[in-house]
C-alpha cells in the first residue's frame, strides 16, 4: 500500500531563518509528488509538484523541493521564511497509473516566530 510520512508534526522557526519540511513516501509504483499549503480558515493550495525531469522543483512563495528517488523523499525547503508562511503544509502523492486520488501525509504545522 502507498503511504506518505511527514516526519515533523510541528516546526517552529524564527523569521528569516531557513526551513526544511520532511516528506517520505512508500509506493510500489511510480508516483507524482505534491506539496500543498493550508492557511488558517482556507482550503489547500498547491505549492509545487514533481511529475518528471529535473529533481529540483520550484514553487510559489519562494519554496522549492527536491525529489530523491533512492531515499523516496520529497523535502520542502525555503531559504528565508516570513511570518506570512505560518500555515499547515501537506505532502501528497498520486499514482502515475490508475486513479488520480491524492494520498496525503499527516501535515506539518510551520510556525514563524518574530
Amino acid at each position, binding site marked *: 500500500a502507498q503511504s506518505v510520512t511527514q516526519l515533523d508534526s510541528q516546526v517552529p522557526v524564527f523569521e528569516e531563518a531557513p526551513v526544511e519540511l520532511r516528506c517520505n513516501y512508500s509506493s510500489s509504483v511510480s508516483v507524482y509528488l505534491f506539496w500543498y499549503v493550508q492557511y488558517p480558515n482556507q*482550503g*489547500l493550495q*498547491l505549492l509545487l509538484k514533481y*511529475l518528471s525531469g529535473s529533481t529540483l522543483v520550484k514553487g510559489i512563495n519562494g519554496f522549492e523541493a527536491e525529489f530523491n528517488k533512492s531515499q523516496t523523499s520529497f523535502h520542502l525547503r525555503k531559504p528565508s521564511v516570513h511570518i506570512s508562511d505560518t500555515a499547515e503544509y501537506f505532502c501528497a502523492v*498520486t499514482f*502515475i497509473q490508475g*486513479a*488520480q486520488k491524492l494520498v*496525503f501525509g499527516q501535515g506539518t504545522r510551520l510556525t514563524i516566530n518574530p
Partner: protein
Amino acid sequence: EPEVTQTPSHQVTQMGQEVILRCVPISNHLYFYWYRQILGQKVEFLVSFYNNEISEKSEIFDDQFSVERPDGSNFTLKIRSTKLEDSAMYFCASSAPSGRGNEQFFGPGTRLTVL
C-alpha cells in the same frame, strides 16, 4: 481567478440526521473529489467522480455516503445517517481533464459537527 466554493462553511447536526454538503467546482473541470480531515489527522480521500459516475471510492465511503452532480455546476456529498465519527472537515476538489498529474484545486472546506 476561478475557485472551488463550498457551502455551508460549518454544519452542526444531530446523530442520525441526513446532511448534504455542497460544492461548486471550477467550471471547465471534469474530475471531482471529496476528501475529509478528522481533527488532528491526515486528509483522507473519499471518492472521485468523472463523467457522471464514481471512478473510485475509499473504504470510508460506505453505503451511508453518496455523491451527485445534480446540475452543471454543483457537486454534492450526502451522508444519509450521520454518526459521531463523521465529524470532520470535508474538502471538495476538482481538476481539469488535460492529463495525469493535474493539480487538484481545493475548496475551503465544510466543518461538519455531529452531536
